[in-house]
C-alpha cells in the first residue's frame, strides 16, 4: 500500500515537471527504490513470522568451534577487523561480527585480542565488545585494551599483527573485514603457528589467498550474511531472503539487457539499452 502510494506520488511528481530532480539518473533512482522495496518487503515478512531457510555456512559454524578450541588450549583468540576505516561497509560488517565473537569469548571466559589499524575502528570495536561482555553478564572480564591500536600503515600493521601471532600464539585467528596485500602475510603466519583460521572478506582479490591459507573463508555475500546468521534475528534473516530475490532480479535484468543489446546490434531494434542503463 505504502509502496503503491509512493510510486503514484513519484509518477505525479515526474509528470508535473519534476523540479530539482536529475532526470538523467532516473534509472538508478528506480533501481535503488525497487531493490530497497524488495528488501523491506522481505524484512516485514520475516517480522510477521514467515520462516526462511538459511543454508549452513561452515565458516560461521566454525567460529564457535574456534573459540571453544582456544578455551580448551588456554590461548587467546585473535580478531583482525581489516585495515580500512569505518567508512567501508566491510569494516562495519567486521566490527559487527566482532560483537558476536566477543559474546562467545565472554561466555567461554577466553581472552580476546583485537589489534586495529584505525583509531575510529578502535573506538567502535571497544564499544561493541564492551556491550557484548555486558550483555553476557561478564562486564568484569572486559578491558579497554582488548581492542588496541597498532598503526595506520598497511605493512607496519601486518608486521605488528604477525609479531602478536608469533609471540602469543593464539589458537584461533579470525580475519573479518577489508584486506589488501597483507592478507597472505597474515594468513600464512597464522598457519605457521598452527592456529585455526577463519577469514571473511569482500575484497575479491584477497579471497584466493584466504582460501589457500585459512581453514574457512566467508566469501563476499556470506561475509555480509554473517551478522544475520550469528544473531538469527528474523528481520536480518528476511534481509537475506530479500538479497537472494535481488540476485534473481539482477540476473533477469542482465539477460534482458543482453537480448536487447543483441537485437540492437542485429539492427532489429533502434534503441540501445546500454545508453539507457549508463548512469551519467
Amino acid at each position: 500500500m505504502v509502496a503503491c502510494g509512493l510510486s503514484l506520488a513519484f509518477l505525479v511528481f515526474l509528470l508535473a515537471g519534476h523540479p530539482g530532480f536529475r532526470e538523467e539518473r532516473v534509472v538508478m533512482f528506480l533501481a535503488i527504490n525497487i531493490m530497497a522495496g524488495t528488501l523491506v518487503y522481505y524484512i516485514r515478512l520475516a517480522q510477521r513470522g514467515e520462516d526462511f531457510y538459511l543454508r549452513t555456512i561452515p565458516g560461521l559454524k566454525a567460529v564457535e568451534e574456534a573459540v571453544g578450541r582456544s578455551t580448551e588450549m588456554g590461548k587467546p583468540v585473535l580478531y583482525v577487523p581489516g585495515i580500512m576505516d569505518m567508512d567501508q561497509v566491510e569494516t562495519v560488517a567486521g566490527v559487527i561480527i566482532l560483537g558476536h565473537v566477543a559474546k562467545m569469548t565472554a561466555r567461554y571466559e577466553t581472552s580476546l585480542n583485537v589489534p586495529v589499524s584505525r583509531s575510529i575502528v578502535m573506538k567502535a570495536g571497544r564499544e561493541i565488545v564492551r556491550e557484548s561482555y555486558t550483555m553476557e553478564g561478564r562486564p568484569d572480564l572486559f578491558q579497554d585494551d582488548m581492542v588496541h591500536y597498532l598503526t595506520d600503515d598497511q605493512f607496519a600493521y601486518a608486521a605488528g599483527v604477525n609479531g602478536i601471532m608469533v609471540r602469543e600464539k593464539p589458537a584461533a585467528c579470525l580475519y573479518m573485514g577489508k584486506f589488501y596485500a597483507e592478507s597472505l602475510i597474515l594468513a600464512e603466519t597464522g598457519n605457521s603457528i598452527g592456529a585455526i583460521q577463519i577469514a571473511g572478506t569482500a575484497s575479491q582479490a584477497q579471497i584466493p589467498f584466504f582460501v589457500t591459507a585459512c581453514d574457512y573463508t566467508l566469501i563476499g555475500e556470506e561475509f555480509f550474511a554473517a551478522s544475520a546468521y550469528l544473531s538469527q534475528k528474523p528481520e536480518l534473516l528476511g534481509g537475506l531472503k530479500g538479497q537472494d530475490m535481488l540476485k534473481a532480479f539482477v540476473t533477469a535484468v542482465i539477460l534482458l539487457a543482453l537480448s536487447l543489446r543483441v537485437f540492437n546490434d542485429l539492427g532489429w531494434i533502434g534503441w540501445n539499452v546500454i545508453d539507457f542503463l549508463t548512469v551519467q
Partner: protein
Amino acid sequence: MMKYIIELILSIGKVDRRWIFLVIGLAVLLPLFFPLGLPIRATNATQRVYDAVEELEPNSKVLVSFEYGPSTKPEIHPMAIAILRHLFTNSQKVYVTCLWPDGQFMAEDALTEIAEEEYGLTYGEDYVLLGFRPGNEAVVKGLVSNIRKLYTTDARGTLVDQIPMMANVNKVKDFDFIFSASAGYPGTIEWVQYAADPTGVPMSTGTTSIQVNDVMPYVQSGQVKGILAGMPGAAEYEALIGSPGIGTSGMDAQSIAHLVIVLFIVFGNITYFIETQRAKKY
C-alpha cells in the same frame, strides 16, 4: 632403488618451509646478478594502454595520479616511469595528483628523474605536481567538479592561478586522458567510478599483479583502456616504448621465481600422489 627415491621425495616433501624461502630467495637474487635476457612480448592489455597514449594529439593534457607507496614501489614505479617517458616523448602536458600521501614522494622521485634530469623540461609549462590532498574518493569527486577549489597551490607552494599550464584547466573534463598508477584504495576503481565514467574522459591504469583481478572487468568492458599488470606489464610497456628499465631487469628474476614455484607445486603433487597411493594400500 625406486624405494629410496620415493623415500627421498617424501622426506623432501616434509621439508621446513624456510628451505622453500631460501630457494625462492636464490631464484630471485641470482638472475638479478646474472641476467638471462629473456625476450619480452606485450600482451593485449599492455598494447591497449600504449595505443591509447599513442592516439593522443601532441600537447594533450594528461592527468597522472600516483596511488602507491614505498612498499609497492618496485612493482608500480617502473610503469609510472615508462608512462612518463612515453608522454614526454610525445610532447604531452602532464598534471600529477596523488591520492596517497606517500604517492607524493613517488611522484617527486619520478618527475625529478624523468622530467627534470632526462628530458630537461620546464616545471609549470610541461608538467606540474599538484600533490596530495586527503579525502580519498572525495578528492576525485572534487577534481571532477572544480580543481581550483581543491588545489589553490601545487606541491611546491606556487599558486595554481600562476602556473601557465593550469590556464583553462578547471575540472577533469578539461583533460584528454587519465592514467592511474595504483596499488589499492583509493585508486583505479575510484577513478573509473567517479571520474572517467561520469565525464567520458578515457583512462588507463597500471596496478599491482594482485589487483589486476579487481580491475579486469572494467578493462574488458572498455571503461579502462588496457592495464599494465604488475611488473610484467611495466616490462612490456618498456619494450613497447623501446626503453628498457627496472621492469625489464626484474623480469628474469620473476620468470625464474615463477618457474621455481611451479616446480614446487609439481613436486608437492608427486609427494601427495605417493602418500595417497600408500594410504590406499594400507
